[in-house]
């Protein structure tokens, strides 16, 4: 029982990170119908920016995170701006464009920070809490709290602000949205910026849990993408549930199948997707193919 609960807790912490990555994927997809393949690399850039500000300039962790989110948000805007001429014309080229940006971001990271990477010390110095024989890292609680707050803020923005409503309208029908005076390009830019900001949040938070290096985006990107698909691609609650599901699933398969855990995780994922091709929440807001 103790192993079961401890495994669950371990899975939740990485699950929160996957959920944040999945949110970024889903946000851009529901707004533009585009899979942003550079998303994992933006996570990596976010992790580097946050850790650099935190370690080199000795800024408080929260401030370093805020700067990283701002920096990657800017990268998101730039990516959207470059791809904008293709919007609603050629999605294949846009997809390849995002892959290209991913490769560029990785190369830039190697040029700036080198290929080796660095470890980030835990910004929350207090030791783990002990509850009924279970050990809960205080930093995990911070990660969970921040991820929850980010998800709530995002839902609030989409549901209750004018700009958010405009983005929802673009997601449903971009021509009708244009007809009522919504700037589709700006709406897309905001989606990309928020997506990149979420990526930086995920990257910054995962830094102290893992090891920051230029290729860390690959594994996080794939798990986050799988989480978004599992929850229902384009669905905001789906991304959150999918993220935690992948994190916890991963933790349990690691415990039971040891060396074959990765295989089992993706087998389960495949079976779920075969049974429910639209994912858990089954929402499909856009289909512009």
């Amino acid at each position: 029982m103790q192993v079961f609960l401890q495994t669950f807790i371990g899975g939740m912490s990485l699950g929160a990170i996957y959920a944040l990555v999945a949110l970024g994927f889903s946000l851009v997809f529901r707004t533009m119908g585009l899979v942003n393949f550079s998303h994992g690399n933006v996570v990596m850039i976010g992790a580097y920016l946050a850790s650099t500000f935190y370690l080199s300039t000795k800024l408080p962790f929260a401030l370093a995170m805020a700067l990283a989110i701002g920096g990657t948000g800017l990268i998101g805007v730039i990516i959207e701006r470059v791809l904008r001429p293709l919007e609603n014309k050629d999605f294949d080229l846009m997809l390849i464009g995002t892959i290209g940006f991913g490769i560029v971001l990785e190369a830039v990271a190697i040029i700036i920070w080198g290929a080796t990477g660095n470890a980030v010390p835990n910004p929350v110095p207090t030791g783990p809490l002990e509850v009924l024989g279970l050990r809960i890292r205080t930093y995990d609680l911070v990660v969970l709290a921040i991820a929850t707050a980010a998800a709530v803020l995002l839902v609030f923005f989409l549901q209750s602000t004018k700009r958010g409503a405009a983005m929802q309208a673009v997601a449903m029908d971009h021509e009708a949205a244009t007809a009522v005076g919504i700037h589709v390009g700006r709406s897309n830019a905001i989606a990309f910026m928020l997506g990149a900001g979420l990526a930086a949040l995920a990257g910054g938070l995962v830094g102290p849990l893992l090891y920051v290096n230029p290729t860390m985006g690959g594994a996080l990107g794939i798990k986050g993408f799988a989480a978004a698909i599992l929850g229902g691609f384009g669905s905001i609650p789906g991304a959150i549930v999918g993220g935690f599901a992948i994190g916890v699933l991963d933790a349990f398969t690691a415990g039971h199948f040891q060396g074959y855990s990765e295989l089992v995780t993706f087998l389960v994922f495949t079976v779920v997707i075969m049974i429910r091709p639209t994912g858990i929440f089954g929402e499909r807001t856009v289909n512009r193919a």
Partner: protein
Amino acid sequence: MFSSLRRRAAVMLLGLALPVALAACSAPGGDQGDSNKTDGPIKIALVDAQSGQLSSLGAWELKGARLAIDEWNAAGGINGRQIELGVFDDQGDPTVGTNLARKIASEGYIAMIGTAESAVTIAMAPILRESKIPNITSGQSPGLVAVKSPFLFLNGPTSVTYDETLAKYIVDTKGLKNIAMITNNGGYGKGEHDAFTKSLQARGVKPIEDQVVTADQKDFSAALTTIRQKNPQVIFIGAEEVQSGLIVKQARDLGITVPFAGAAPQGTPVFADTAGTANVEGTIVSSPYLSNEVSEASKKFAAAYKAKFNEDAEMHGAKAYDGTQILLNALKTSNVATGQALADAIRATKYAGLLGDFAFDDTGVGIFATRIGTIQGGKLVAAG
């Protein structure tokens, strides 16, 4: 509509494959040239991970090899010919490695330094053997010996030596019998797992817990909680630097206080940084190169290393330096031979290196001893 969807799926697939393909072709290399030339620079390839999670190994190895080659070049090269080092990035990926093996063969490199990853070296070995290119690797998996290539040499001991020394210290010297193991299922981790289990078996000790993780796993809660419940006296780790660091960090968070034990990766600064300096205190390390202070030669090497790269030398750089020195000595004694003759010359080379006295046997292993150190106050010191 339907065909367009399908087209998109095809593009997505292409998209996933593209970075891999691009990366595979984009390895930096030296210029084209013919093999068997008797003038112009002597071309030696260094193949290692220069990117990815194992790139610190590649960076250290490059520095060690570069230092040795620059020393020889400064002294006039070999037979008046300069030595040229071509650097290739295998990304720690065996598939990329096999492509690079063909590439260095076609570009006229006569010998190869690297790789530091056993799995990649094992994948490259058949092609290098076919092309008759001698290879001095920094890998230590017993699997390297098992491929039985006469062109493959190790610049250090194998896991068998590391783990036999470690088991001897833990079981015989310290009398610890409750030992738990956590290893990954990659080339290195598998080798460590098998070698350490065998050494324990020979002493009649059975590990009380044997957890296997995947090579890119990040969360070890399940494995570590299971280990904690068994109350071991010491935990053996068989995983690379970063993963070992993550395991130790998470173990301390889960309330595991007993020391960890392992081979070379546990003696590196990357391991200590990833885990946190306080968390690695007391770690037992089996290594052929405990510190830069062990001998006059190592002090000289460490000073030159520091002067050139402005960082402290460590074991992997020292291993690569030894390996490269052996290759260059063999090239000198054989009058820049290639192929089989060069392999024979390497096998015949007796070299007093930083790790000890090298004398190669038929398996390509030249050194059969490691020493035990423990991490104290953030530094690796010899265990008394």
